[in-house]
């Protein structure tokens, strides 16, 4: 199964949850926001939400930036 995470194509196993994807990526979920197909997914749904073929996932966090254009991650 193929999904897109932060613009990069990625192979995942059938029935993988968002929480499992984050843990596979080594991301602590308390500091990020997840957008699934352009809709924000609340943190309490990370575990129960299963990814589907073609899903577009954005994992967003905070980086240094203050004025104007922030630095790209």
């Amino acid at each position: 199964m193929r999904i897109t995470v932060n613009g990069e194509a990625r192979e995942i196993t059938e029935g993988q949850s968002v929480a499992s994807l984050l843990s596979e990526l080594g991301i602590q979920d308390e500091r990020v926001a997840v957008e699934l197909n352009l809709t924000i997914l609340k943190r309490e749904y990370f575990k129960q939400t299963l990814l589907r073929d073609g899903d577009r996932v954005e994992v967003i966090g905070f980086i240094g930036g203050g004025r104007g254009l922030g630095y790209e991650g």
Partner: protein
Amino acid sequence: MKDEDRLTIAGIEFRSRLWVGTGKYKDFIETQKAIEASGAEVVTVAVRRVNIVDRKSENLLDYLSPQKYKILPNTAGCYTVEEALRYARLARAAGISDMVKLEVIGDEKTLFPDTAGLIEAAKILVKEGFIVLPYTNDDPVVAKRLVDVGCPAVMPLAAPIGSGLGIRNPYNLKILMESVKVPVIVDAGVGTASDAALAMEYGAAGVLMNTAIAGAKDPILMAEAMKYAVWAGRLAYRAGRIPRKLYATASSPIEGML
């Protein structure tokens, strides 16, 4: 700052009137040291994709603990209302607070705000329960509109972002401060300590800056200078300056002269 002179926005009390950005530093250690030296309590951060390729890369928030600082996410780099709304909502979902520094940029070269888009986005976000702190220009009418749609403070620029030109239109800024009843945080364009002091002397409730500190030869020393400048400017504002006069007024009495 003395306890009785705290800055309050939307019921949130702020210890420091100097707010700082976290971009453009050499590394996270320098960021941390400079922010520590500035005494700032509010630090702005940008909202971006997490680096999923290199997971060993460190996180800014490991250096700036949300327990110690008020982390203020911004919508920097957003050029449309839709984009700004998306970033603001993501920032809130990432779970720090309902506060957002709203930027809707209208022009790439000057980074001046698109004020029509800004007012529109602010209105929507306020309805969604956000505490919206808008980065705006020094137009008093726009500031009033932003307050009308529910912004609990406004953040006019002193000069273009990162330009270091200082306060380019002091009279407009003064009119703006007298036109709105909410705190005014001067945001962007400050170049050195005297610029920050001047903004405070005009009656700003605070100053937000990034480049003036991060771009200085010694950012940590400049951070400290800014701390005192904002403080001195605030005290001078509260003390009330003397009127300007064209001719001299002797300080020493004439009586008793030989």
